[in-house]
């Protein structure tokens, strides 16, 4: 982009969103990996988003949509990043009818703000992605971003019932609708949710909500070995109990979460009617006794707070590498032990959070030094884990890593035989490759 070209584009952006809502160049806080976008824009309406996209499409400028920016570094390195499009000003709750148990929000609406508004009606969106306190609902949908509550409530993908999307050329389309059950035409919600801003810009999201639980408690089993904790998890999963979240955490994770208990742990979160919470806590207490495991019970606020802290764990431990493994649930412990073996000597503060019910494993840690040997050890470990787990349908995604690592390894891993379909979809929705180019699988 020439200087004059950039001036002209700035003028056009200003004419769309107003002077106060264009930053040029992007301040350091808006860097994505080591890329610095030329502009940050803050549209206030979906019409403004559409106008920005029309401009970008005509000029072939790369647009990167963002919510709070929590997950901007999730993905491969961007090929180009001209305009960072923030939904920060689009925060309204557009429709909320408690008797329908559904709501429509603008993409920049914060998860926390929405749940505060729904609480008086005893309803909520049961999402707990990392840094949930900052998350926007558009961002959660775009990244299909989940946390431990996935165990009991599914992924955000399963709660999105409708979307309004601005396409690469600026035309607006709607997917789904406002009702909880809908098979009218193709479900384009599925296409956009989890597409990381590479197919369109989400401007409105319709969700189905859940009743807010009457009570909550968390049970902790503690031990020095995984074996009995794993057995505890298995017994809970095969019982009548209905934990909303079930997580295995290693010593490093626990010393940050509950410094009094720096041991291996199994955490089970119960969100239910009060008598059902009491019943379940009693049941797992008995289970802990039968396995001779130390048992701790956290109620209400203490329970809420440990899960909130768990969502910030990567910050508490200054994580700069974070992997997500997805394996068959019965292999969860095997998977993180393999991860620990592969990375244990390279990473400091190696922490593990694993969901034995869904097979999702997070391994994070700090690179003690970013020198060549360390980087190549990490890259080797990622490749090793991928090869090892591919044989068991397992996947290894790099959720967070320094650019030097992303330059050497595709953060998403192999896609397989369906890649040509994905390429064709990208081409059908963004033929000029202006939406977050390079970020997605195989650099789409």
């Amino acid at each position, binding site marked *: 982009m020439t200087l004059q070209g950039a001036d002209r584009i700035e003028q056009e952006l200003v004419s769309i969103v107003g002077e106060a809502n264009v930053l040029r160049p992007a301040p350091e806080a808006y860097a994505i990996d080591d890329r610095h976008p030329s502009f940050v824009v803050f549209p206030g309406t979906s019409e403004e988003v559409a106008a920005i996209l029309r401009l970008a499409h005509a000029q072939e400028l790369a647009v990167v949509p963002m919510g709070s920016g929590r997950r901007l570094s999730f993905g491969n390195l961007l090929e180009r990043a001209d305009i960072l499009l923030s939904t920060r000003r689009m925060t309204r709750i557009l429709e909320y*009818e408690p*008797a*329908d*148990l559904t709501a429509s929000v603008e993409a920049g609406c914060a998860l926390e703000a929405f749940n505060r508004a729904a609480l008086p009606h*005893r309803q909520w969106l049961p999402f707990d992605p990392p840094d949930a306190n900052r998350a926007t609902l558009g961002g959660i949908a775009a990244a*299909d971003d989940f946390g431990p509550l996935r165990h009991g409530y*599914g992924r955000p*993908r*399963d709660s999105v019932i409708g979307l309004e999307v601005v396409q690469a050329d600026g*035309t607006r*389309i*709607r997917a789904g*609708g*406002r*009702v*909880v*059950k*809908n*098979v*009218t*035409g*193709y*479900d*384009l919600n*599925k296409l956009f*949710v*989890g*597409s990381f801003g590479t*197919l369109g810009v989400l401007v409105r999201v319709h969700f189905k909500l*859940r*009743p807010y639980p009457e009570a909550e408690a968390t049970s902790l089993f503690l031990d020095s070995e995984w074996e009995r904790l794993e057995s505890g998890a298995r017994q809970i999963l*095969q019982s*009548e*109990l*209905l934990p909303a979240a079930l997580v295995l955490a290693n010593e490093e994770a626990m010393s940050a979460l509950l410094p009094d208990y720096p041991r291996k742990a199994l955490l089970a979160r119960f969100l*239910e009617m009060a*008598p*059902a919470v009491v*019943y379940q806590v009693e049941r797992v207490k008995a289970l802990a006794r039968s396995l001779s495991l130390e048992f701790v019970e956290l109620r209400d606020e203490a329970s809420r707070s440990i899960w909130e802290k768990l969502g910030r764990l990567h910050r508490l431990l200054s994580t700069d590498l974070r992997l997500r493994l*997805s*394996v*068959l*649930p019965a292999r969860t412990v095997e998977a993180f032990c393999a991860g620990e073996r592969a990375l244990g000597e390279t990473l400091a503060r190696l922490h593990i959070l694993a969901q034995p019910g869904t*097979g*999702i494993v997070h391994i994070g840690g700090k690179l003690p030094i970013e020198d060549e040997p360390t980087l190549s050890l990490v890259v080797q470990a990622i490749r090793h884990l991928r090869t090892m787990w591919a044989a068991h*349908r397992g*996947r290894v995604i790099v959720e967070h890593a320094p650019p030097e690592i992303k330059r050497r390894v595709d953060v*998403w*891993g192999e*896609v*397989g*035989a*369906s890649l040509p*379909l*994905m390429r*064709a*979809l990208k081409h*059908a929705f963004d033929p000029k490759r202006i939406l977050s180019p390079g970020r*997605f*699988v195989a650099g789409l």
Partner: protein
Amino acid sequence: MASWIAELQEIVGREDVLTDPERLLAYECDGLSIHKHPPAAVVFPESAEEVVGIVKVLWRHRVPFLARGAGTGLSGGAVAVEGGVILELARMNHILEIDYANRLAVVEPGVINLMLTRAVADAGYFYAPDPSSQMACTLGGNVAENAGGPHCLKYGMTVHHVLGLDVVLPNGEVVTLGGHGTDAVGYDLLGLFVGSEGTFGIVTKITVRLTRQPQAVKTLLADFLSVEDTSRAVSAIIAAGILPSALEMMDRATIEAVEASVYAAGLPTDAAAVLLIELDGLAASVEHEAERIVELCRTNGARQVIVARDEAERARLWAGRKGAFGALGRISPDLMVQDAVIPRSTLPEVLPEVYRIAARYGLRMANVFHAGDGNLHPNICFDGRDSDEVRRVKEACREIMELCVRVGGTLTGEHGIGLDKIAYMPLVFTDDDLEAMARVRAVFDPEGLCNPGKVLPVRRCRAF
């Protein structure tokens, strides 16, 4: 004889390619009898390899084709509109793997929905989506239609229970969508495929989630003297933050038909409507929720609320509900089983209006539906030989669709668009929306060979 027929015979054997017009009649329509189109041939593959072989032949000869399961669909989705070939998958009916440790099962597409639940019941599991046709419909058909059922209020639709698919694309290539138990990376092609009504390809293997049977189940029956009160009770239950596993409404016309049939469940024939409510989960919460529901029904005018005493009574109530379509089918030569969705809070205003529309066209209507998620099934009894009545049925259906869309609802909650509702698509979607859908379809099926003529309208020489 077309040369491709000989090629198909080579793959599956002469016996398994039907071309005799009389035998093809059985395949001219699905569960919705008003759309009749006989196929050019029906083939019976027994393996994924045979499906690939058949599809490659048809692709090469540019012959349109579609997969069919039990043919219980209700939108005219499993009929060959352009004289195409039907791949009947009923023989691919093996449960390939049951893995309790990972709570999943791998099945072929011809496995009947209820057979899977029966296969895992003793171990304490079930397959959650339970369309009313579950004794006959196939899981492959469920995937194509993203089938629902009474219990999807709590458990979600088919798409929430499918973990992986092996698919033969229209050009004969084989792809895996989803991770068959783990998260795949990239665009959610699995979610996109489920509910694509057979227009993206043919499924040859399905991995589904198994769900643990709940500790406790309670089934309640509440009867009301007005449909408005019944609707208000539904809204009150949802607004109170209770998510029953099922919340079904049956009106008087349905009750009368059921009670006069073999499905008689002892329903009160003098009630204006009944609610069949099921709660499941932990005994401690189910007890508590049942008390609240009794109270909410009473406050909203229920005459009586009874709780099923035992499994036998529970089964009888459900047999009445699931047999309702069959019972209604007995009382007139033809039955139009409609399907539409509205925001559930609008039920008290919409339902009376639906009856008024039927009355205006002089039609007999019975409503039996998934009230808890606002999924209406207005059923119209008619005689297909009476052309004036058929016209009135069509006009009334259009008015009902327009009404539902006007209040923020949509055209179909679980039956699909198929052939039957294509004309209504522009009520819900703009040209741009439809064009985006058409782009997705073209990615999977660039030649338009796979179940053509379904889902998307073709207008003004521009194919959506």
